[in-house]
């Protein structure tokens, strides 16, 4: 550590930097010579040329003798190689990144001409790792990846959703299906911390890019997720939550290839609640009032029998309406389309990939067009552009230039979709006709209901137009320093990201009407209540930018049986955003080191380290050193393992290391001494006040006196949250590589989690600092199995992935609870707690039994049809001490995916099933109680709620008696309302056909593929109807999720 510290201090001097770089080069100069001399012997010489499929010579191809891997050379800039081969040499192996390995028998040949096949379609041998790529065969870290083909299959608006069910170790929860807001929350190997950010770090082409979701999937070559310490240590401070690496496509040496793809999807909700119709509702409401009467001491039916008849007969649809608000507000179907055209190719000197994409997604509102010139629909449009260039300036100097831009344009009502959907649920079918003769009708007078007509809400809501642009420019220079020592190269990377956001808000109110009954004519009269107003307009802007710099030395060299690679890298980034605290930019600084070693590709070792600093901590606590060690053993390379077709590859690997997290609690500069904060200086027009006084005499000389408050007390010792991760994994290939299996056990121990001092008494009256004292464990397994086979021309494959991650809070300074089971410590993060419902009180005898426990709420007034709760602590009272851990948290512990597919001649198909378990949702207010504030009610409550008759007839009773007040006792979190949210979903099905006709060739088309696919087609779960297992419920009664979408997608790919 002290060495690192003095090193970093040294590095702060520009002069020392220069000296260091030069010295490294000079030192390296001397030792390759010795290595080369050691191998000077007189052996048979062979030579040859290596070219790609277009005949272009390939520089840098590694040529080695399979029987003696120490005999190795590389091709020069003309693709030529010369090699002296030992006597036992029989086979030459040619390897080159981006191309398939090739083996050639030497025989008596002396001169070889070798054509390497482009491996761009099959990069499986390589994986992208932090700051580089590594061969899968010699990898020791836990990394998994997914390619472009699978990503495109999901026809999802954003990258995060497309990953669901595709990658082991990845857990996802989607919060909404609303266009432009439907990204998933991703967790790599579950949740490791209870404070601060749990989000993984996302890097696109080596640059941190938090809003990766808007990248066009057509631009992506591969996505890797880095899971263990060995893979993530190089990211030091930000790697603790795992890392997602996205690599975009690049050009290869070829003629220009143009690819055009277009898809059109029909979208619909996976599920939607169904509310009671007017008659059932009015009758149910009378019942609910009846039961409430016992508590309130008053009962009167709200609707008379005559009124009930009118609701049922639909004879007076204006004043006795039966409105289905869901179908009034929402459409059955909408559409989504995606188009992309890209061109790629290149020569030895210049390679290019350019892509242009357009994505369009429409929402599900029934756009009634009630307001002229105004569209209330949610629409999301995205324009993607990317161009990646690679220039080979000289043999040694290459330059890459990446330019990309994501522009999205979202239009939506300002009312959140969750509010509008909740309004549909809250609105009673009797409250009004909604729309009458094309007019927006307000709730009928006297028909009190909690919510506004949702169509009015939609039309009246201000419209927002949110335009966002994300521009990225990055340049990378690679320079080979083989002159200094062979295998050494240096690179430098600078990247600039610019984000711009324009938020326009248009306000205009439409005309609304009320319906009144005219006593004289005995007819309904429609009278206007609100005038159409003129446009209002407001606009606000947001922007930020980030500059990232990276410079490093890379080294890769093989000495006989020993292969070594090394990496030493410096990076820094600065993020500027006017919204940041004190407008101070956010800076990071780090040194990264990596050494890998392997002996005959058999014994593998790797050491990684990150040494990183962040301004969030005090000088002295600022830099953290994060080492990781890993070892691997490729058992099948051992001589005692005979070559066989059953176990063709077996690798055992393990890693241990530490990674950090500085995103602790979202606040910055917590280390500084206590600062005083001036309170807001304006009057607060709302129901709350800012601290201030209005001294003086009202009407004469009263003035506002502003205030200052003591801020959070400083904690000068604030430092990194640290995560110690260990991983044991195995990679197996069986039956001639037809089956490949990867499985990992992992364990993560987080310490120094920033934790509030919960046990400090409130009487201190101060905002006490948080300390690095929390502790949490997270462990589990993940794995993947692949199988590929063919029957004649029928190729097929199967794939399964599995992830299990369970966390456990070890310490969070929790206040001791009177009973151990109430303690949150020792449980999973966000574990659900609730009462144990043991059926219902069915008779007055049961209710009046003096031995039944006393309910501390509702003044102990119970009646038949109420939940019977278990008195867990046996104190004769039902109160918060009887809440026990129930179910799981709302984030799944288990996620799995199972997919298969195949192709036969031109046909291909694939199917993906995906599921989660060990997850619980709490039934929302809208799904477990009706009539709240005289609101609407889901129909199943009418069918399965407790009533005297239903109890006596022995019917299926699942819910307590109806209620209009939501009496506390029946609707507290309990074993009925905490639902098992496990599910299995038919996530994706695709069928395609590829045309390869001569006619097409004639008009210049290389290939055409037509396909149809479907997403979220079928679901099996245990939830209440209308709840989606992927979308957690809102416990706030004012919101309901916008359900996620089922897409049926028609697509076309044309390659020119």
């Amino acid at each position, binding site marked *: 550590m002290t060495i690192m510290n003095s090193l970093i201090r040294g590095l702060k001097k520009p002069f020392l930097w220069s000296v260091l770089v030069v010295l490294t080069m000079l030192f390296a100069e001397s030792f390759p010579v010795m290595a080369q001399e050691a191998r000077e012997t007189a052996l048979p010489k062979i030579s040859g040329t290596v070219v790609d499929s277009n005949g272009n010579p390939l520089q840098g191809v590694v040529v080695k003798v399979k029987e003696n891997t120490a005999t190795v050379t590389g091709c020069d800039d003309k693709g030529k190689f010369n090699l002296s081969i030992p006597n036992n040499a029989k086979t030459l192996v040619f390897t080159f990144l981006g191309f398939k390995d090739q083996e050639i028998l030497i025989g008596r040949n002396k001169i070889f001409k070798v054509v390497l096949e482009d491996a761009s379609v099959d990069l499986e041998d390589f994986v992208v790792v932090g700051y580089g790529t590594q061969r899968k065969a010699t990898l020791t870290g836990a990394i998994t990846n997914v390619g472009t083909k699978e990503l495109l299959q999901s026809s999802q608006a954003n990258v995060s959703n497309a990953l669901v069910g595709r990658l082991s170790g990845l857990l996802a929860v989607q919060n909404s299906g609303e266009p432009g807001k439907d990204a998933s929350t991703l967790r790599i190997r579950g949740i490791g911390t209870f404070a601060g950010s749990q989000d993984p770090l996302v890097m696109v082409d080596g640059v941190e890019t938090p809003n990766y979701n808007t990248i066009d999937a057509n631009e992506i070559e591969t996505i890797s997720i880095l899971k263990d310490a060995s893979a993530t240590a190089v990211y030091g401070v930000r790697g603790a939550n795992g890392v997602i690496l996205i690599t975009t496509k690049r050009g290869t040496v070829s003629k220009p290839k143009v690819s055009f793809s277009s898809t059109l999807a029909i979208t619909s909700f996976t599920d939607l609640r169904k509310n009671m119709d007017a008659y059932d509702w009015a009758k149910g409401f009378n019942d609910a009032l009846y039961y409430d009467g016992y508590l309130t001491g008053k009962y009167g039916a709200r609707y008379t029998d005559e009124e009930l008849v009118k609701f049922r007969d639909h004879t007076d649809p204006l004043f006795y309406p039966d409105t289905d608000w869901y179908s009034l507000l929402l459409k059955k179907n909408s559409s989504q389309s995606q188009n992309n055209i890209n061109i790629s190719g290149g020569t030895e000197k210049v390679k290019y990939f350019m892509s242009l994409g357009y994505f369009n997604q429409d929402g599900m509102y029934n756009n009634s067009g009630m307001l002229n010139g105004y569209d209330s629909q949610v629409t999301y449009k995205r324009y993607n552009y990317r161009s990646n260039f690679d220039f080979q300036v000289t043999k040694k100097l290459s330059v890459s230039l990446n330019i990309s831009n994501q522009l999205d344009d979202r239009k939506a009502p300002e009312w959140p979709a969750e509010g509008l959907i909740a309004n549909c649920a809250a609105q009673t079918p009797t409250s009004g006709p909604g729309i009458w003769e094309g007019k927006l009708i307000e709730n009928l007078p006297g028909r009190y209901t909690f919510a506004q007509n949702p169509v009015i809400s939609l039309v009246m809501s201000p419209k927002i137009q949110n335009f966002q642009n994300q521009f990225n420019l990055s340049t990378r220079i690679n320079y080979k320093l083989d002159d200094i020592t062979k295998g050494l190269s240096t690179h430098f990377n600078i990247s600039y990201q610019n984000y711009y956001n324009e938020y326009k808000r248009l306000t205009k109110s439409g005309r609304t009407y009320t319906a009144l009954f005219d006593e004289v004519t005995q007819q309904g009269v429609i009278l206007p209540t609100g005038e159409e107003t003129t446009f209002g307009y407001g606009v606000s802007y947001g922007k930020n930018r980030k500059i990232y710099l990276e410079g490093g030395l890379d080294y890769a060299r093989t000495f006989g049986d020993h292969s070594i690679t090394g990496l030493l890298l410096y990076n820094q980034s600065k993020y500027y955003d006017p919204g940041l605290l004190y407008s101070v930019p956010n*800076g990071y*600084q780090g040194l990264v080191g990596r050494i890998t070693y392997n002996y005959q590709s058999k014994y593998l070792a790797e050491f990684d380290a990150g040494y990183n600093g962040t301004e969030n901590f005090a000088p002295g606590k600022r830099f953290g050193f994060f080492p990781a060690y890993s070892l691997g053993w490729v058992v099948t390379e051992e001589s005692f393992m005979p070559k066989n077709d059953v176990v063709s590859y077996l690798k055992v690997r393990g890693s241990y290391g530490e990674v950090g997290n500085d995103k602790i609690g979202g606040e910055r500069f917590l280390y500084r001494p206590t600062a005083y904060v001036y309170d807001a200086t304006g009057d607060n027009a709302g129901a709350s006040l800012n601290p201030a006084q209005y001294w003086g005499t009202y009407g004469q000389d009263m003035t506002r006196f502003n205030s200052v408050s003591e801020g959070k007390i400083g904690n000068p010792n604030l430092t990194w949250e640290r995560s110690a991760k260990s991983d044991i994994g195995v990679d197996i290939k069986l039956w001639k590589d037809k089956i490949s299996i990867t499985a990992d056990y992992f364990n993560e121990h987080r310490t120094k989690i920033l934790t509030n001092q919960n046990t400090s008494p409130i009487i201190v009256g101060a905002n006490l600092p948080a300390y690095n004292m929390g502790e949490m464990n997270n462990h589990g397994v993940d794995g993947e199995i692949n199988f590929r086979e063919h029957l004649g021309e029928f190729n097929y494959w199967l794939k399964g992935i599995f992830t299990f991650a369970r966390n456990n809070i070890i310490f969070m300074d929790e206040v001791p609870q009177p009973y151990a089971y109430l303690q949150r410590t020792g449980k999973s993060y966000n574990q659900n707690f609730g009462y144990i419902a043991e059926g219902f009180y069915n008779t007055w005898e049961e209710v009046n039994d003096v031995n039944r426990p006393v309910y501390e709420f509702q003044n102990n007034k119970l009646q038949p049809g109420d939940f019977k709760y278990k008195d867990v602590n046996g104190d004769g009272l039902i109160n918060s001490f009887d809440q026990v851990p129930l179910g799981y948290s709302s984030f799944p512990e288990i996620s799995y995916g199972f997919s298969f597919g195949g192709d036969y001649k031109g046909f291909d198909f694939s199917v993906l099933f995906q599921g989660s378990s060990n997850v619980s949702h709490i039934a929302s207010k809208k799904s477990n109680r009706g009539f709240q504030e005289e609101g609407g009610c889901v129909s199943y409550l009418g069918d399965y709620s407790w009533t005297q008759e239903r109890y006596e007839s022995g019917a299926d009773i699942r819910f307590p008696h109806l209620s209009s*007040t939501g009496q506390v006792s029946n609707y507290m979190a309990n074993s009925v309302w905490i639902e098992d949210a496990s599910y299995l979903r038919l996530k994706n099905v695709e069928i395609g056909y590829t045309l390869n006709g001569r006619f097409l060739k004639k008009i210049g088309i290389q290939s055409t593929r037509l396909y149809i696919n479907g997403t979220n087609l079928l679901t099996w779960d245990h939830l209440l109807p209308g709840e989606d297992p992927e979308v957690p419920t809102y416990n706030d009664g004012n919101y309901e999720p916008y359900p996620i979408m089922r897409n049926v997608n028609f697509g076309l790919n044309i390659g020119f």
Partner: protein
Amino acid sequence: MKKLYIIPIFIIILSLNYACDDLNNFLDKAPGVDVTEDTIFSSKEQVELFVSGTYYYGVTSDVYGWWDDRDRTSMNPGDRCDEAEVFAPWFPSQSVWNSAAMSPTNGASDLAFATYWIALRRANILIEKIMDAPFDNPAYKTQVFAEAKFIRAFVTFTIFKKYGGAPLLKKRLNPEDQLKIPRSTVKETVDFIVQDCDSAIAKLPQTYPTAMRGRITKAAALALKSRTLLYAASKTFNTATPYIDFGEHNDLICYGNEDKERWNLAAQAAKAVLDECPAAGFRLITEYGADSSYRYVWETPDNSEIILAEKSHPERWQGHFPFNYFFPGQGLFITWNFMKEYETKNGEAQPWNQEGGENLMAIYKNMDPRFKQTVSYHGQFFNVDYPMLDLTMTGAQRPIGNGCHSAYVHKTLPYSVNNSTNTPGMPNAIIFRVAEFYLNYAEALNEYNSTPPDAAYDAVDVVRARSGMPALPRGLTQSVFREKVRNERAIELAYEGHRIFDILRWEIADDGIMKGKMYGIKQYKITGSTEIRYEPYVFEVRSFKTAMYRHPFPQNEINKGYLIQNPGY
């Protein structure tokens, strides 16, 4: 070509030089701590900012309960006792009190609990720092010191009246200190408050310039002392047998003995307020006549009767005055139980009939003039939007939803406030006003002496006379006088946050007051007459458990192991 490697090396060195330029402080851009405690105590202007915020947390009235971080919707506005019913059944004050749901785990029991300690911390910082602050203004420093002492006493009194013996915060707590301060006894708590009051009384100015109206005066500190000693002398504290026997911890909820001398101290303290008032410019408002003076006092901010008010409110619009947002139909309603407390203009009981009657308007007409200045009943003006209320069962302004049929409580909502002309009003959040101290004095004198002395009658009569009510008949027994003075308090101080705590300190949470049947009156038009038929009905059956004579400390604090919970929770 070979020398081309110079290019990238050059670029790298160049950019590293760029990077290194600010490498030394690359991560060191955190702003200096501009505003520390030393800054705050560097000048009068800065101290004033801190004093302002300390008033915000510490000088609070229960009259308005807004949803800011001092949320007092659990204390206000009368719906947790017999004074009123709010249309919203979930409203924290009535939802916890009226169903006896007060519990350590029910956060709504005292929503402002956390802010007491913020206020005390701020007061302690002022006490600790102000005298040694490095600026020269001894008079100002002494004043702030005394204001801080008052605030510390006032907040401690608020805790005391709710919880009994409190943890006494005599200095600011730092993270390294012993933070777990246990509760002190009732006696220690009262002594601490009185000691702080005495210290403040000695140092506070008698008056301020009008532009500083709202600052704590000597009279305010005397008023706090009077109220504290009145509470301390009251039955619930001044006893050997508390409402629930708490064994060895009895001294946390009461004195542990009954001492009549405490009433004497209370009487003297009330007298001291009344003696101080004339010189300080505080007096009963009488000049607007019997039909308007009372309303003027509660409606007009900064009038001469107000000794101290909460001054943290700017003008507010109708939607921001609690309980009137959904008008008509929903708001705050007086109960029939409380209506019956109002005497006739002649000082007699009203001829209410449990079975109802056809003379409602006649009864209203003959009510104590303060009734009309407190509520808006059928046929009355509410505001310009509703100039004449129709509260009959078919009337447009009758309560809908969960109200109680009776009359709207108007007190605390200025009559000028309305929606249609969008006129704001100034909340008048009274903490101490002169009338209270006449009644404190009368109550204490009556309890101290075996028969009420003349001074006690005189004190009550002054208050009654202002509203045109006749003097009390002389020669009453101690217990009859007690009932009279309690009734007078209920009427005069209605909806100002007194009633609930009076009920608790007198321990009279009986049927019809805090529990049992609560009545409204349904009103019907009588054809061919302006009279209204009324019909009492039970709008709610309320509950009260004895433990509620003290608030429960939050369970979370109990679990931390430094507080003893009040009995019954």
